[in-house]
């Protein structure tokens, strides 16, 4: 059963905007990611540091080339340095510097991608391990968006991180050199840092709310697209194409508007980051000229300061870029954190095993509800070994909940369930799956061939498949051109509903379960076939069977009927005996009248 999708909390709690908090969160995020691949990340940082150092060395070499080679060339008196050495030095440094970049880019990307991989796997595990109720609480499309863009954006801050760290080394070295020249010049330079910082704070504060809206909007767009294409047939038969386009237009437009909002902020922030160092450079030059005319510094010192400052401009830009990504990543990571949250983890699996052969099933005062709504109340019944029992009840009486409880998809709030000789939680879950089978009204086929869909990775002979296919009237497969190797589309769309259900029944029979439950699983099969299937089941199997029955023919195939009314089993016995119960009689009569 599905819990209706709740409205997303419009990003208010994922959009907390205190800039300091966002930065701290980003730092923690970096730490978590880096810890996952320390060595690789270190190589990336080393590459960035090599690049930074060689950038300075390269400048020195050019200075040498100017002073020792080019100027002497034009001044015949001076002695010229070796041209060969210069060429070797220039190209050598460049090769080394480039390898620094290769290291940073390749291993930096590896750090990011390994984290993406890790997050995707973790999400996959969450989706597969959490309870079905948790899984169905959000639209599939939104879960897809988490695994795609949310993951990617949450690790985006890793890309500029090695460079940023490497640049801190460069910035520190340049600052110390500046200090040795003139305190005034350092003063100008150090003004650029807080200015960049301030710009970032303002940007972060403003961007965090729209950024979380963007993440939500991407999730919504994916959800609309997924649902709409999932229901493509209905969309076509209703002629709803234009309305569906309109529906996407609305959510895509929300995405467009919030992203434009962020774009506007960036349109101011990014040029500011470029402008601040340039302005600083001009300030150094102007103040330098003034300091020279006062005789406090020499021209050479000012030129050196300029070069140092130029080298500083680059790291400032990189750090600014990092801070910008930080805000986006933090927002995406907050969303992921919510996706990882599991509301009620299922209890740890037991260790007991079950014997082959028919199983006893027992419900003792089981109570279960969704939210405030009680579905099952003190529900008790027992099914003996090899018994075929029909479960009858109105829609909403709790039949599907019984199925979900029996198969451990959900756990009872009160009461206990016994399968074979053990309480359900005591049984090893893998063993349990081998011994019990449920065919639910939703038949899901995987995008694979029919044989794999029946075998589901279990070690099963083809003859076994054939045998059970005959029982489930699924031997129609043998008349298909590809037989059991026929590929079925996603959800088995290339088969008819009835064919899908017959494949699903075959799948459940394979492996000879000790307990079989058919929950409204023949709804698309015509009555003739349904009767034949049930008759074959009765003849060929010694399995304990519980059939959710809607047809008199089905009910009569069972020796005993359980009548589920308002959340509990109110009557049990043969069809004739149960007719004494007026609710049961009404329900069955309602059917009898219409089938005539």
């Amino acid at each position, binding site marked *: 059963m599905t819990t209706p999708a709740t409205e997303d909390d419009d990003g208010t709690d994922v959009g907390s905007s205190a800039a300091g908090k966002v930065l701290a969160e980003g730092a923690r995020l970096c730490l978590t990611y880096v810890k996952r691949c320390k060595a690789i990340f270190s190589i990336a940082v080393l590459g960035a540091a090599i690049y930074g150092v060689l950038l300075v060395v390269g400048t020195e070499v*050019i200075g040498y080339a*100017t002073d020792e080679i*080019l*100027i002497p*060339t034009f001044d015949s008196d001076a002695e010229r340095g070796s*041209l060969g050495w210069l060429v070797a030095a220039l190209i050598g440094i460049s090769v080394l510097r*480039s390898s620094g*970049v290769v290291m940073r*880019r*390749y291993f930096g*990307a590896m750090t990011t991608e390994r984290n993406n*991989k890790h997050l995707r796997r973790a999400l996959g595990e969450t989706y*597969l391990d959490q309870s079905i109720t948790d899984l*169905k609480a959000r*639209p*599939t499309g939104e*879960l*897809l968006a988490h*695994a795609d*863009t949310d993951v990617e954006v949450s690790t985006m801050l890793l890309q500029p991180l090695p460079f940023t760290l490497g640049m801190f080394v460069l910035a520190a070295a340049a600052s110390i050199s500046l200090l040795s020249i003139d305190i005034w010049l350092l003063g100008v330079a150090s003004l650029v840092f807080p200015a960049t910082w301030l710009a970032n704070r303002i940007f972060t504060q403003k961007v965090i709310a729209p950024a979380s809206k963007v993440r939500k909007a991407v999730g919504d*767009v994916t959800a609309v697209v*997924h649902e709409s*294409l*999932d229901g493509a*047939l*209905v969309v076509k*038969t*209703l*002629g709803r194409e234009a309305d569906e386009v309109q529906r996407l237009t609305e959510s895509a*437009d929300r995405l*467009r508007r919030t992203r434009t909002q962020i*774009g506007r902020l960036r*349109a101011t922030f990014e040029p500011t980051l*470029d402008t601040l160092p340039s302005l600083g*450079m001009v300030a150094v*030059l*102007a103040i330098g*000229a003034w300091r020279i005319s006062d005789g406090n510094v020499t*021209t050479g010192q000012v030129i050196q300061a*300029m070069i140092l400052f130029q080298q500083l401009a680059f790291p400032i830009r990189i750090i600014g870029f990092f801070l910008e990504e930080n805000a986006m990543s933090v927002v995406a990571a907050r969303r992921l954190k919510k996706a990882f949250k599991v509301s009620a983890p299922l209890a740890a699996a037991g260790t007991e095993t079950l014997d082959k052969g028919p199983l006893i099933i027992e419900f003792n005062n089981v109570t279960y509800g969704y939210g405030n*709504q009680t579905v099952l109340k003190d529900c008790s019944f027992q099914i003996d070994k090899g018994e075929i029992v029909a479960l009858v*009840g109105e*829609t*909403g009486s709790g039949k599907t909940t019984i199925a979900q409880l029996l198969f451990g*998809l959900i756990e009872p709030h009160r009461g206990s369930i016994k399968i074979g000789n053990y309480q359900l939680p005591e049984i090893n879950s893998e063993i349990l*799956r081998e011994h019990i089978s*449920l065919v639910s009204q*939703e038949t899901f086929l995987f*995008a694979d061939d029919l044989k794999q869909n029946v075998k589901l990775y279990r070690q099963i002979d083809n003859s076994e498949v054939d045998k059970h296919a005959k029982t489930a009237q699924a031997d129609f497969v043998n008349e298909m051109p590809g037989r059991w190797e026929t590929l079925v*589309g*996603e959800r088995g*769309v*290339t088969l*008819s509903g009835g064919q899908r259900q017959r494949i699903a029944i075959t799948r459940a029979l394979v492996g000879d379960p000790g307990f079989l439950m058919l929950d409204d699983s023949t*709804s*698309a099969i015509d*009555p003739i076939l349904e009767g034949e299937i049930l008759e074959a089941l009765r003849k060929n199997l010694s399995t304990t069977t519980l059939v959710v029955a809607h047809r008199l023919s*089905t009910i009569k195939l069972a020796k005993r009927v359980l009548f589920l009314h308002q959340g509990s089993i109110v009557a049990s016995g043969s069809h004739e005996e149960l007719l004494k119960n007026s609710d049961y009689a009404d*329900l069955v009569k*309602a059917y009898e009248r219409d089938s005539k």
Partner: protein
Amino acid sequence: MTSEADDLSERDRPSQSAFEILRKGISTTPKLKKGLALTALAAVLSACGQLAIPILIRVAIDRGLQPGQQPRPAFVAISCLITACIIILVFVLSRLTFLRLVEMTEGTLFDLRIKAFEHVHRLSIAEHNRSRLGTTVARVTSDVEQLAKFFEWGGMSWIINGTLLIGIVIVMAAVSWQLTIVALLAFLPVLPLVKWIQKRQLAAYSMLRTRVGETFGEFSEAISGGQTIRLYGLQKNAKKKLFNAIEIQYKARMKAVRFFAVLFTLGDVFGAVALSSIAVAAVTQQQTWDLELGQVLAFVFLVTLMTGPIGHLSEILDQTQIALAGWEKILNLLEIPIEIFEPSNGTILQAGPVSVQATSLCFAYGNGDTVLKDINVSIPAGIKVAVVGETGSGKTTFAKLLVRLADPSSGSLKLNNVEMQNVDAQSRRGAARMVPQDGFLFNTDVQTNILYGKPSATEAEVIASVRSLGLEEWVGLLPDGLKTQVGERGESLSVGERQVVALIRAQLADPGLLILDEATSSVDPRTEKALTGALYRLAEGRTTISIAHRLSTAENADLILVFDGGKLVEQGSHTELLGMKKKYANLHASWVGNTRLDR
């Protein structure tokens, strides 16, 4: 297991060059070009300003603060002032460019997304069934997101860094054309190398986008198949498959990253080669080319200036390739031909019951599998028709042709004597409705799902439809009545309940021809009662064609069509067909035999 055919955008497609993708991309979204001239102008001006800043500073130092000469503070001050003004101007221009690009980008992506989505919905159901849902979703979502990342700053970076490079070369040429030629010759080998890398990089990213689509497919299956996976304890295998897809995607990504890592090296190393060549040329050719020291120093400075934009471009080239790869996938999707073309000036069908005429009607799939052979039938308006036959007899295909989910391969199919292909799409959808067996509902409440049958209807009309089908009691028993949430795909409701909702939807739409793929032989009594009653009333005043699974449906029909092996083998009333003692009689006998169990 994921074959190429699962991906709509991949079928029979040779990979395209970056240029082709760009050309097609721009022609697909004309908005890209709108106002581009002014944006480009602002970007070019901004780049000119950015180029002027270091040159001005350099001039201020050279002319104002020459070592050994008297400093000229006034000259420096004025230079600084001018530079500061240009910096501010560059800020304003960059901001303007950025703003314009943001508007254009978001507008373009919005259009592209909608266009792709619209196109997918126009593709035939067969096309949908052949592809993997998750992968198609990736095209409309993930691939468009990749484009967004690039357009936002990639486009601007191309213009600005491109202009900077060209500007630097122009200034170089003004300083010394001979040295410029030397520098350019040194850079020449880069071009074929970049081209070589670029092609491989694009292929690598294209592969990555395919892999992303596959991961989407696996995730989608792991989520949609959640219940089955849990029931059979398939988590381990599902994880293995999913992790495998994630791993393959990771490897594809890392392969593409290699090219990205190497690209910068090219620019840097050849920059050093250029610098070395200039030094050598300056030393050896000083006399012949009549070079001055100032020229050479300026030149060295200009070459170092080039490293900035070259580094940027290597970064952007990477982003561009990612975007192009995604773009290509979307464009391929848009190129899948639409099989069903709606007439532009189609005939409007008259209100009221619709008649159907089929003459020599045949249908075969693209691969040649014939499903329907030479069907001839005339169905008068207002009657009840039951279509019977075994699975695979062609009855479902016949129903699909009636609502134009596919077109016949030969022969003619007419509604009210108007050839199906000539009927106005809107009119056809209003007049002929199909209620599919698989009752997919949208994840909202019952009422909204009903309203999807006729979006213009009011709540009162919905209630009236419910009443006219005698379903008030049924609705009343739903937890929240018409406001009951149905869950994803409608899975909170039973199959039978979903079909009841579909029937109310059909009643609201009030079509003249109702095609009903009867869902259930087995629903709970209350729903069964609701269904039969509703079906009976729904049929009043229109032509109904039911794919019958129920004996009563066939017995009560005015006309029964019996399909067998793609042919219409028998047609007539119940008594006529029984009298023929052929296919229908046999079917009926076994039907009755089974039903007798009920009594």
